[in-house]
């Protein structure tokens, strides 16, 4: 029943496509074995691209926290919460350029900034975090204040402070320090100012003329460093990367490659990958996820975090540690479980540590043929996309199409009755499939459900909480399903279909590039995205290689800057750009 059963449609074009894919996979495998191949895809040059837009993007809460931790260390405690991000085109990363800061939101930033500044300047931290001692603690000290603010401001703003910015904050520290008769109190006020500055809270991208193509604009070196760092590490550029931006290293292919490789080879790459998938998989929805614990007593609050962590650990292990094939996320039998997740899934989780160990993670590999393979069987998918008290093939099918296939499923019309679907105790329609079929007698509903439910019904072995079941209300569950003409049985069959789906890898390429740039893919970038897809395939769908492709591409940094109608030159705006850095002559645009 649960054996994978994937059957391709008999139509010839699909068969030809399948053969082509098989041939391509074979070549990739051969290339990998010989390690000398230089296929057309591998050798092809990046196609011309008009580039995207420069943006002003608000830091996500994770990026804010990572930045503070990296600049001031793990010892600085962050409390509170910030305003929620907005998901646009499937990504919060795209939504970050669509949000501002409300008055209430500013209060949250200000409170947090004060707390951070208090800690940085307190007696426990000042010796470590402030690189100088004032001549007199009870008075202002411009020299020491300038030294601290110049160094810290550079890390916070992700570029050197302008002379004006620096002197303003030095004078604030001077006046506050003198008034309060406390050097550190003065610095605290200036640091708070930096922390609530839009220059810190927003990634403001600025432009420079591409020396190789004077008619084109690209990000300036500091904005390049910022994009690069947030893509790969989900945090602000470190000192080495800022230095590389400052000395022009990022403007050379060799220099850029050196920094990209450094970031890719760092263990901190895991942070970037986690952030990418946390966004792509919509884990922010866990914040509002609830389950009826009377029906699902195994789904305790601890699982809210562990469900996400299971998936992220699985992805990191497969894609980074093992340098595996991205497509295997749908079929992998390896994962990580805690005792509580073991309870949820009813599988053994044998701890290897002494007794009294709290929830620990254990590597688990399901046997061949086990129905719990792939990401789609994780609670982070089947539980997240279910109702509190019952599973939902519709929500699951919709999520799969939107997250993994980049397809938008319309919302149901407002006048639909869901009575049939909600009646889980219906004596006639005892399974979800039966209830869905009854619901579909309404032709208004059938149109959308036929693109979601045949996918979601294949996951019906997993209840609303993610627990495994073979029957519902005493009736054996039929897990046959279909996706774009491919029929399959069960989660394993669906996983294999997704694994083999060109649309799934194409979607990931689009999403990852969109995540990197903060922009929904534009038609003008179609050539590059097709090129990136080919490179992804040619490199065996290895994520680190793909991230390197993006990080080294022109498209990642290239900006389609507005031009004046007459001259065709890129429009400069010297009024808001820092006037003491010649390269930074263009301002970013609100998306």
């Amino acid at each position, binding site marked *: 029943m649960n054996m994978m059963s994937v059957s391709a449609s008999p139509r010839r074009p699909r068969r030809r496509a399948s053969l082509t894919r098989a041939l391509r996979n074979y070549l990739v495998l051969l290339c990998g074995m010989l390690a000398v191949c230089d296929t057309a895809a591998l050798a092809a040059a990046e196609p011309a691209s008009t580039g995207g837009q420069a943006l002003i993007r608000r830091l996500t809460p994770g990026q804010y926290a990572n930045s503070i931790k990296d600049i001031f260390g793990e010892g600085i405690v962050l409390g509170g919460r910030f305003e929620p991000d907005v998901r646009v085109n499937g990504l919060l990363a795209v939504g970050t350029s669509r949000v501002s800061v409300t008055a209430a939101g500013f209060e949250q930033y200000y409170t947090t900034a004060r707390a951070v500044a208090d800690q940085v300047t307190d007696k426990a931290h000042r010796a470590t975090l402030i690189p100088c001692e004032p001549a007199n603690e009870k008075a202002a000290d411009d020299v020491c204040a300038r030294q601290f603010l110049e160094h810290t401001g550079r890390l916070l703003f992700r570029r050197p402070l302008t002379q004006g910015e620096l002197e303003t904050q030095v004078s604030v520290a001077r006046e506050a320090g003198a008034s309060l008769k406390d050097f550190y109190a003065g610095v605290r006020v200036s640091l708070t100012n930096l922390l609530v500055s839009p220059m810190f809270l927003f990634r403001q991208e600025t432009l420079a003329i591409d020396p190789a193509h004077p008619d084109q604009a690209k990000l300036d070196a500091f904005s390049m460093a910022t994009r690069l760092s947030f893509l790969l590490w989900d945090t602000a550029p470190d000192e080495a990367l800022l230095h590389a931006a400052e000395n022009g290293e990022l403007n050379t292919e060799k220099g850029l490659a050196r920094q990209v490789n450094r970031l890719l080879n760092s263990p901190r790459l895991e942070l970037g990958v986690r952030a990418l998938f946390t966004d792509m998989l919509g884990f922010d929805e866990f914040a509002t996820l609830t389950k009826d*614990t009377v029906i699902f*007593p*195994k789904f*305790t609050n601890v699982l809210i975090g562990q469900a996400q962590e299971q998936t992220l650990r699985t992805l990191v292990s497969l894609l980074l540690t093992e340098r595996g094939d991205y497509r295997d996320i749908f079929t992998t039998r390896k994962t990580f479980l805690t*005792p*509580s997740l*073991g*309870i949820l899934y*009813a*599988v*053994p*989780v*044998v*701890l*290897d*540590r*002494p*007794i*009294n160990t709290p929830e620990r993670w*254990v*590597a*688990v*590999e*399901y*046997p061949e043929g*086990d129905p719990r393979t792939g990401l789609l069987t994780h609670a982070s998918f089947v539980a997240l996309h279910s109702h509190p008290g019952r599973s939902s093939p519709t929500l699951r099918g919709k999520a799969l199409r939107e997250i993994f296939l980049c397809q938008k499923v319309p919302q149901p019309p407002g006048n639909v009755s869901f009575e049939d679907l909600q009646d889980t105790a219906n004596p006639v329609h005892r399974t979800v499939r039966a209830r869905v079929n009854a619901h579909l007698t309404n032709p208004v509903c059938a149109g959308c459900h036929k693109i979601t439910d045949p996918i979601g019904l294949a996951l019906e*072995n997993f209840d609303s909480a993610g627990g*495994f*079941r*073979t*029957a519902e209300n005493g009736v054996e569950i039929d897990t046959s399903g279909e996706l774009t003409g491919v029929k399959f049985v069960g989660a394993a069959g669906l996983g294999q279909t997704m694994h083999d789906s060109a649309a799934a890898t194409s979607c990931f390429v689009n999403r990852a590039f969109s995540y990197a740039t903060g922009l929904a893919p534009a038609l003008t970038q179609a050539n590059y995205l097709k090129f990136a897809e080919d490179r992804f395939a040619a490199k065996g769908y290895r994520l680190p290689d793909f991230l390197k492709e993006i990080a080294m591409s022109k498209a990642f940094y290239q900006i389609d800057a507005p031009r004046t109608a007459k001259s065709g030159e890129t429009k400069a705006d010297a009024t808001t750009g820092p006037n003491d850095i010649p390269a930074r002559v263009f301002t970013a645009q609100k998306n």
Partner: protein
Amino acid sequence: MTSSESRFPTANSTLQQCRKPATVLAVLALAGIPAAPAFAETRSFVVSWLTQAVYSQEGDCPGGVEPNIEVRFRGILADMGKSPKEIDELMSEFNGGGGPGPVHEMLRNRGSAEGKRVFVGDNPTAVPDPKIHTVASKIGPGFNLDGKDTGDSFEDPDTHETGVDNQYFRALGCFASHRAMPPDQPTMWFYAWDATRDRTKGWVISIDGKDLSKDGDVTVAFGRALETPIRTPKGMPQRDQTFRADPTPRFQNTFKGHMKDGEVTIDPAPFHIVTGGGYLPLEMKLTQTRLRLKPKPDGSIEGMLGGYQPWLGIYYMYAGGGYGYESMVGLNLPGIYYALRRLADAEPDPKTGQNMSISAAYRFEAVPAIVVRNTAQK
């Protein structure tokens, strides 16, 4: 009990019962743990609650249910020679049983030994036998341990076995905290088990047999695990948790068992398990142990465990609760001591002839679990 529902449920979709040895072996191999020799079929469980087996009925205490705390303490003070006025004054500071205060000091240390006032919990014979009321019913849960049907034995309300030996029930069954009609649990035991649950390692049971859907011989393992049960939102142990059986031999018991009409029983043998202490005896030792396991439709089991248990161990479980067991739970520690000693019915001391064990029975439920055995603790 011949319907399929009365049988131990066959493994369905879950791996909880090791029906899919390949999976288990794969996981164990990954964890670097050698797997135990495979039985044809294994069902495992973790005890979710355990209580003294009682069956409290109207009128089963001819002397009446033991009086409530205030009434009893007033009686004790009267026995000490206090006037009604003095008693009223003392009890005005009783404060619902919470100390300290002169009245509590007086009641706690009401024993007399070598000319000093002593705590009666530690020195139960420092006061005369208060002769607490005991159960005189003919109905009581448990097992016929000695094969005899004498005047002081019960008839089990479920199995209708006669000659049931459960003197522990008889001894304490007239305290309000020890009274309940199944499926309710006596308050004292309900609280004791719940309060110690988070520090008590799981008590795990495995039933091994060729085919647990049929009558036949089985092996029953009952012992302590290395892990503590994880609770559901309602506070009960979760189903399907993985436990490693504690490899220490003295924490494990293996019985020859038999399945008949869906129920499992064992051949008499000694039983020993260690608890988390607190409100339970630190260790529970039984001789002539009997066990009855009955599957429930939801996959869990209900069980009855019985045998002869050293009564001093039982007494010190109560005495370990201190004066609070008297002033707040309403027990009478010296009364318990004398009742247990008087009603003890097995294993006489060779020198004094005093029986050192008392027949006892415990009711419990257990939920499906995954139990890994033969694991060396790292």
